[in-house]
């Protein structure tokens, strides 16, 4: 190694370090801004209702009313709602991720007649807001299939490709994998399914986890459909449970916010676990080299 390169690398290291310090400062600043509204929600969960409306507004609760959480848990049956929500989410996540991967693979790698048409229909279905087909679907599920007060209308759609957005995401990720990789396998005599399972899937694991995460969050917060399809209160989910505090003409915001603070924990937890695979797992990309 020449002297010159050595010096350059050394100065590079130093500038790298200053860059990292600047990065950290910028990230801290943004993190502060992003967390502020969340702090606002959290501090509300520890206040009395009159205190929420006080002027000037206070950043820190006068008394930290952790008793709000006790009160909340009496109405907001967290574990039960969590269980109910999981009954919907777990099959949906698994089926949605799997079928989205199958479809994404077909669109990204395979050649077949009608691909263009099906793909266009798939993209077209992304353009429809959920609300648009809500009423025909409701009529179909209840009158057509007789499913009343059931989770099935919420779960079954995820067995059908997991939504066009997710198929699309998988497809995009598969497209960014060098094609030589599976071509080599084809020459070795591997079938298309084997390529999918042993080459593609490991390579797009980050994307699959992201898809599972999005299905999770989407169902976690999908108030509209859950409200339409679920009637009895012992089938309530987390999203529906959050409406428990909105009474006749009045809303108990501090308890709603306490319930909110309780209920977003599982989503963050899922993220933290998933993060290990889709952002920390850099070695995985080694497969390409």
């Amino acid at each position, binding site marked *: 190694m020449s002297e010159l390169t050595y010096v350059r690398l050394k100065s590079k290291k130093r500038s790298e370090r200053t860059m990292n310090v600047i990065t950290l400062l910028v990230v801290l600043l943004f993190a502060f801004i992003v967390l502020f509204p969340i702090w606002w929600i959290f501090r509300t969960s520890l206040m009395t209702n009159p205190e929420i409306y006080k002027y000037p507004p206070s950043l820190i609760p006068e008394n930290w009313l952790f008793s709000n959480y006790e009160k909340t848990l009496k109405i907001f049956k967290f574990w039960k709602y969590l269980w109910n929500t999981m009954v919907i989410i777990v099959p949906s996540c698994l089926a949605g991720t799997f079928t989205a991967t199958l479809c994404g693979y077909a669109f990204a790698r395979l050649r077949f007649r009608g691909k263009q048409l099906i793909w266009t229909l798939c993209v077209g279905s992304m353009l429809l807001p959920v609300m648009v087909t809500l009423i025909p679907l409701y009529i179909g599920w209840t009158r057509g299939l007789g499913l009343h007060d059931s989770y099935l209308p919420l779960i079954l759609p995820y067995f059908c490709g997991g939504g066009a957005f997710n198929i699309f995401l998988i497809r995009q990720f598969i497209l960014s994998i060098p094609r030589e990789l599976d071509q080599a396998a084809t020459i070795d005599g591997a079938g298309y399914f084997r390529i999918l399972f042993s080459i593609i899937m490991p390579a797009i694991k980050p994307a699959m986890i992201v898809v599972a995460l999005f299905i999770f969050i989407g169902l976690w917060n999908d108030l*509209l459909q859950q*409200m339409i399809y679920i009637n009895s209160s012992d089938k309530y989910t987390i999203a529906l449970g959050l409406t428990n505090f*909105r*009474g006749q003409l009045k809303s108990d915001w501090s308890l709603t916010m306490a319930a909110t603070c309780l209920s977003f924990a599982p989503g963050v937890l899922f993220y933290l676990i998933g993060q290990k695979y889709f952002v920390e797992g850099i070695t995985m990309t080694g497969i390409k080299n």
Partner: protein
Amino acid sequence: MKAMKKGMMLSVVMILILAMIVGCGSNNNKNTNASPSEGKASTAPETTTEPEKTSKTEKVKITYSMWGSAEEGSKTQEAADKFNATQDRIEVEVQAIPWENYMTKLNTQATAGQLPDTGILKEDGVIQWSSDGMLNDVSSMYEGSDSKPLDSLAYKYQGKTVAYAAANEILLLYYNKDMFDKANVPYPPSVLEKAWTWDEFVAAAKKLTNDKNGKHPGEDGFDSQGIVQYGASVENLAWQLETWALSNGGGFYNNDGTEVRIGEDASTEAIQKVADLYLKDHVAPLSVGQTDDGIQRTIIAGTVAMATNGQWNVGTSLNAAKEAGLKYGVAVLPYMKEKVTLNTGGANVVFSQTKHPQEAMEWLKWYTAEENNWGLISSGIWMPILEKWYTDETLTHKWVDNPNFPPYDEYKSAVVDYAQSSAARPASWFFTNNTTDFNTLLGSSLGDVWTGKTTAKDAIAKNLEALKAANKGDK
């Protein structure tokens, strides 16, 4: 790209073909019911034609839907259990639906013929539901009873009573007594005869409005951007504005709700006066009219000295605030030309899709008897609907003498007497069709009036034709 265009074209063609298949084959379309164009795939008749055989031993099952929190739902179920125990023919099950999505859910259920037997309905949709044949006539409900609901609480369509309000509510003027004492301003009157004129109201509000240097509006050096305490706040939800239009000699509609009167000068002038509280008089905060916590933001928070709002606030927030030390009072509304307050109340209806209208009515009659929903009345959220509670003083005492309420005399004259005076008029949705649509459009038309970008007169003139069309139900 050519291929893509072709794909798009194909998908459009496919939709059209599917639409035709589904639209024509009305027999095998259970999956989507997309044949409404045929006009026969509907809901109500099929379910009503087949009365269920009910033997003496088996109880008739009825579902009652209500809006509210989990707690309110279980309280209502408790009441229903009591009802179920009093007789052996009817079994009522309560279905509590989140408040915000209540009508969304009911409307969706209606499309598929999945409605409950009976339930509460938001005020603005009652006549619409009735005109579409979704509600049963309940005129006979109180036949032979000793006390009937107040006349003003009956929803009427084509002369028939299609629902009674579940509760009574009127609009009031609330005030924070400490703020008045501090500014040395006399309290607003609780007696109708002494009601403040609009100008007196504004004058009092000016004395109660301070900027950060303690100056009042109209004084030299008053800083309208630095107001720390406001004198008054008038809720500007579309339906509540009708009070002021009526008070100024105008109105939203004529007496039977068939003609729109909101374009008249008296009506627009009244709305402008409400807007001017913020824009010109500088005595009011900007009222956004999108939330139901007006009283908490104003009277309870101590930021505004007087505020108009519904009676229900006594039970939803003021009772707790009183317990925590707030001194508040109730007064009658100020007036422009005529003394007016509106009364209203969500409707208890029997859906025409039910197989058991008689049983449903029986339950409703039992449930709306004050003794059976006493919790809501004693807390102050609901006012009784039967006349006797207003006229029989011992019953009035039973209702009002409890720590949730302001002093008896004050509440008696500002609420109980006010509610049955000539000033109390039913909100137009008791007899007018399409009020949802009308109020949405009115609210949207007035959006820039509150911030002073346009005037009420111009804003309404611009949308008058559309408002008239909305009233006619031009769908």
